[in-house]
């Protein structure tokens, strides 16, 4: 059984170095524009930073992947092809693409450039993945976080495309690549501007006994002083539904697959991804370090693997809402 690659996020050069220094095999990043789904103010890489990041990673035998994972907007296709061209020129190890048109461009223009199918492509079946392999020569696919582990295993059995799954990080309502909730409130969403709940629409208001958060003036949550907060997204808001106020769509929590690592390795997952390009180098270092140790331990002795409570404690602390979950992986229903 091969040991899965550990794929970690970087929103800055400092985060990339933190990932490499703490044991990431691959680091993924985005350019400073809306061709990636973490297009936040002050985040991401200019050309100089990408070049330095590649140098730093390659010197240490690690790889740099570039996410071009939003859908090209009408009339602006050239922005997406320019990002693909730039990634190829800079010498990245792979591009992570969602839009079939962008994939098609990359396949025809840069056939030598390794292509991964982004989670945003929302390919949940081996048929969809094999279609992308036949048409666009993808070598890896990132699975949406909606499948049980048994379903992931079924996908792996029916494709030779490497399968990457999420191992840690914030969850959303898992309508990956198709979510318009942010647009409902603001007119902008990951697929249109590269950001969910763009910061210019977010207002945190501290009052003596509570804190309100609004998205474009729509109240999405109210936290008591002792309550943990989450990201200001509609999917994790608490709403009044038939006279009761609760998380109507999803609780703020982070996925954490530590306890499933031996199973993930056994079924042949090629890579484990960490979410969080918007987080700090400190988060990247903490999560990478703990997952590195856990994956190494699970791969060395799958039968005798036990989750170290120190890993859980550190990962639990940085989790959104300070809560962790196994997400869809262990749901009994389909």
């Amino acid at each position: 059984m091969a040991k899965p690659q550990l794929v970690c996020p970087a929103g800055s050069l400092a985060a990339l170095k933190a990932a490499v220094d703490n044991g990431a095999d691959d680091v993924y990043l985005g350019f400073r524009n809306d061709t990636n789904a973490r297009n936040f103010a002050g985040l991401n890489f200019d050309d100089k930073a990408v070049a330095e990041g590649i140098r730093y990673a390659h010197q240490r035998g690690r790889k740099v992947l570039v996410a071009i994972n939003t859908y090209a907007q009408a009339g602006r296709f050239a922005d997406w092809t320019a990002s693909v061209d730039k990634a190829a020129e800079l010498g990245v190890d792979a591009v992570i693409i969602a839009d079939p048109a962008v994939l098609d461009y990359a396949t025809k223009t840069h056939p030598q450039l390794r292509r991964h199918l982004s989670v945003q492509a929302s390919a949940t079946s081996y048929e969809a993945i094999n279609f992308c392999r036949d048409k666009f020569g993808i070598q890896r696919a990132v699975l949406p976080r909606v499948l049980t582990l048994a379903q992931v295993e079924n996908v792996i059995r029916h494709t030779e495309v490497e399968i990457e799954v999420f191992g840690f990080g914030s969850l959303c309502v898992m309508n990956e690549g198709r979510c318009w909730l942010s647009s409902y409130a603001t007119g902008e969403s990951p697929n249109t501007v590269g950001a969910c709940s763009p910061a210019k629409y977010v207002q945190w208001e501290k009052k003596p006994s509570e804190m309100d958060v609004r998205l474009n003036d729509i109240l999405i949550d109210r936290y008591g002083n002792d309550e943990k907060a989450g990201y200001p997204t509609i999917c994790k808001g608490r709403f009044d539904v038939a006279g009761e106020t609760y998380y109507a769509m999803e609780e703020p929590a982070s996925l954490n697959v530590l306890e499933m690592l031996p199973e993930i390795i056994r079924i042949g997952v090629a890579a484990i991804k960490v979410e969080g390009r918007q987080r700090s180098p400190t988060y990247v270092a903490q999560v990478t370090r703990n997952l590195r140790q856990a994956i190494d331990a699970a791969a060395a002795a799958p039968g005798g693997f036990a989750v170290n409570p120190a890993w859980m404690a550190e990962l639990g602390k940085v989790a959104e809402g300070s809560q962790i979950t196994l997400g869809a992986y262990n749901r009994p229903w389909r």
Partner: protein
Amino acid sequence: MIDSSRIPKIPAFTLPALIARIGTRLPQWPHSMNLALALNAAKRMGVLHDDTLSEIEGKRFRVTVLDTGMVADFSYRAGAFRPLWNTGGKPDLQFAAPLSAYLQMVSRQEDPDTLFFNRTLSIEGDTELGLRVKNMLDALEWPAMSWQGLKPTFLSRG
């Protein structure tokens, strides 16, 4: 880059309430001046990027250390951080946290989002500006410092 493994682990702590009670009664201008001086020194070291600095031009900031009672008001204008003496009106962006949280963030022992989620750090005002500043601070790469390397210099002076 700061090698945080060389910095002792900073626990979460809150200073006795008396300190804040005294601190809030003391003049605040030295804090504003010291913080502006420190930020200008960081700028001269080249760790703050010009493109981000141009985006915070003219903005007013307030940093409050809750358990010391320290409040520092400053802005970035015409190429330098400047203390603000007249603190009337609402700043564009306010950070408030206990001293230990700032120390943990500066030494890269805690993640700002984690401190925000668990309500230790509060950020109010222009959220986009807050995100920009947070990302600027996250992207900082301090020049490598070797305390071992410094030692002989000091000794030879002695």
